């Protein structure tokens, strides 16, 4: 008697539960490629190597900010021998000094991964100043 109702209910449940899957069929959700600025391309090497940087840049930045604010050390000599200014947005050898375009570099992945770091509430996007 209630067999049909149960089957119908189950079918509805399965369809709803699988919503994210069938909804995204046929859409292109490829991971974005970051666009490196000319300066970053020319430099070839970042602080860590590419994959390490991709996975661990947040821990590196966290470590940097503690070192700068608490130990007042600002110069970072990386394992690859390059020296950096331990700063997100100030100076030529800081992060933004090389990766000049926030939208094409930071935001591209952050938007895709739906992470909203609050860096820019305080730190200045170089473009913000020139505008």
């Amino acid at each position, binding site marked *: 008697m209630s067999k049909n109702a149960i089957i119908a209910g189950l079918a509805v449940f399965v369809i709803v539960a699988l919503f994210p899957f069938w909804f995204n069929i046929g859409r292109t959700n490829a991971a974005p490629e970051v666009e490196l600025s000319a300066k970053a391309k020319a430099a070839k090497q970042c602080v860590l190597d590419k994959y390490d940087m991709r996975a661990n840049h947040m821990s590196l930045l966290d470590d940097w900010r503690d070192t700068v604010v608490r130990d*007042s*050390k600002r110069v970072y*000599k990386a394992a690859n021998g390059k020296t950096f200014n331990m700063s997100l*947005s100030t100076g030529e050898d800081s992060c933004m000094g090389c990766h000049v375009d926030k939208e094409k570099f930071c935001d591209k992945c952050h938007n895709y991964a739906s992470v909203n770091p609050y860096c820019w*509430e*305080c730190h*200045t996007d170089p473009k913000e*100043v020139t505008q």
Partner: protein
Amino acid sequence: MKTIKENLLKKSSRRGFLKVAGISAVAIGAAPAIKAVSVASGGGADSLPVKTANGESLTAKRWGMVIDTNKITDEVVESVIAACRNAHNIPDFNHTPDEEKYPKTRPANKNQEIKWIWEEHYKHAFPEMEDEFIAEKFKSLPFLVTCNHCKNAPCVQACPTKATFKREDGIVIMDFHRCIGCRFCMAACPYGSRSFNFRDARPFIDKINPDFPVRSKGVVEKCNLCAERLERGEQPACVEASEGAIVVGDLEDPSSEIRGLLNENYAIRRKQELGTESSVYYIM
């Protein structure tokens, strides 16, 4: 099976086997020690990152400030405050926001102003020293007051997240990242040197200085004795703009300029009776 056994018996004695086994055991046991020694002696040192201070940075055992009240005029006050404002992106609530960039900015509440260094009357700066027949000049003289970078800083003790802390060189500084905006430090500071950001400061900053971050809403801020400038080997912004009225230096170094000034002149500190051991002296 038989052949292996026979081979062993034929080619090696028990004595030989024990020798080989012993040497192998020592080798396995010593491997970590050998590795550690080779790293310590520089074998792998170039693969570790090194963090250092800037070579030309100014350092001190305990930073202090001397303000010569005889040299403070209204013009000096104005330029000092402006220099500090520009150096640290401090909002000016008298500034009219740019309509295009920041549309619909609600008007500023002047009670919420942000102060790092500001002008104060003698009777407010030194309330306990308001003597009955004090020299007439003190009633009108402008005084510059700022964070006193106390030796026993009450704000540092009050901060529950260690966002405010005392550096080894005596500067009381904030890690804005850690501040949760509880404002305990503001209640603790007897000098009113701390300000809370009730709103986004950007619309009220005339020109953003990219060398220093802006603060976000919900964060407390205060004078940092230009720690970022000292590290670049520059004098604090207020010192540069003060035409010699403000001197910053090492209080613990008897041969420093600031100690010389304190030796030659009568200087007082704000609210000394509280035991905060302020590092800012006023030459009277």
